[in-house]
């Protein structure tokens, strides 16, 4: 079973399996630990079949005490379309 890490905004609002677009980091030990992947995945605070372990942190880095679960449905590109600095008033 693989193990990943991610940061989620307001994770307490997620109660069961939900599909999300995320950046996850591979926690496999070694020099490549924390390599990132952008994915569409099913994540859940409760286990479900075929899922790997997901260590979830709030977006400020605080770790949730219990592990979550993740199944990667689709791998995405290394970056997302978007405009840098969007949302900041010019």
């Amino acid at each position, binding site marked *: 079973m693989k193990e990943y890490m991610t*940061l989620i*905004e307001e994770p307490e609002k997620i109660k069961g399996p939900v599909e999300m677009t995320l*950046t996850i*980091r591979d926690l496999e030990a*070694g*020099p*490549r*630990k*924390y*390599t*990132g*992947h*952008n994915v569409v995945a099913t994540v859940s605070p409760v286990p479900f079949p075929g899922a790997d372990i997901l260590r979830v*942190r709030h*977006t*400020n*880095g*605080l*770790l949730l005490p219990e592990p979550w679960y993740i199944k990667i449905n689709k791998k995405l590109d*290394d*970056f*997302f*379309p*978007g*405009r*840098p*600095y*969007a*949302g*900041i*008033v*010019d």
Partner: protein
Amino acid sequence: MAFNDIREFCQALTKTGDLVHVKKEVDWELEAAAITRRSNETLGPALLFEKIKDYPAGYRILGGQQATYRRVAVSLGMPPEAPIPDIYREYEARDQKPIKPEIVTTGPCKENVMKGEDIDLLKFPVPLVHDGDGGRYFGTWDIVISKDPDTGWTNWGMYRFMVHNERVLTGDPTMTSHFGIVFREKFMPKKKRMPIAIVVGADPLSHMVATAGYGIGVDEADYAGALRKAPVQLVKAETSDLLVPAHAEIVVEGEILPDAVGTEGPFGEYPGYRTGRAHMANVCLVKAITYRSSPIMSMISLGIPVDDSSVSAALTASLAIKRRLKRHNIPVTDVYAPAEGVTHLVVVGVEQGGMRVAQEIKNVITARRAAINKVVVVDKDVDVFDMKQVIHALSVKCHPVRGIVSNEVAPGKANELTPCYSLEERQHKKGGAVVFDCTWPPEWPKETLPIKSSFNDIYPREIQEKVLKNWKDYGLK
């Protein structure tokens, strides 16, 4: 004599007792940074970690290289025990004489070259600096080089860059930084990629100038030469026309995408807290990596003062502010950003004060951005470097109503890392600035000014001279 590279600097710090070579294996995941952080907090030495878990012999990490004024003094070729004001004066004197860089055809940074499929950021012991950071940070104590394509101005700045994978970084230069200004104005409108170089392990004074606020259009490389009293040697990058320090340990060449974003952060930052959150930031596609054999990754374990940022960046910020105030004809005597203020607070001495001058100082300092948001203005008889004198002036000369003026700053200008700002304020870079006027109002007649009750001010000269002359005879040292 100037240090050509970080290795010569490490040798000098070893001789002065300011660097420890750690031969025990340490983990790049938190351990190296934790050791550095604790050393910073106990005013301990810089650390050269010579054996890194998961990495071959020779791959090293250097932490805390300029985290004390002693090490800043050594980097300037001064005695390590040089007083802080002397360090400032020396920096300021050298700063008057920029020296253009010397362009060379090759250098130690070209000993090894990765291009194409060989590119691999994780070949290097990139540290995870704090528990809960969004990822591993390649750029912490770095120099990020970018260029204005219209004017040819080359900017050196210090901005954090996080590893996404072997060939992609995400980074967080603010929109009001020189990097952000050039990118937004010159590349994004044309949907063009901006070439950059992220330099790690250059000579120590090149890193210091990267923290400095020289104006738009001013090449920091000239001031690296000024501080070194010798030109810094630059060599052309492999994949762009950028010039990079020839003696750097590692140079990552990449392009910032105008139409893409990637997850970055959070990161424990220089104000001493991790206030930021994971967010969408700039994306850098790596085009080449060049590096010295047995490379040294320079790292800053950012946090509560003191560390490289609160010491070195505060010094360069103070002098940048002094230059800017003088350009605005403000009668400044000196400027000091104490390390404990983590470049949020600055003390400005003036020839003659008053609230009009104090407000003008605040407005000049916060015109482009309000990273510094607390300004303490003192009269010329207060030594800005002596916190006892500054706190005394703040306590008794700053009127609690008339002496404090604050204002909100426009969205986008405030520092999103400032811990006292709400989440909403940080998201929109909203905040404020305040000035504490600790000067005598100029309209007060001189004969009504309170007399300072100090040895130098409240005793006649002949009594002062008599006391000083007989000091040892009184049994005093």
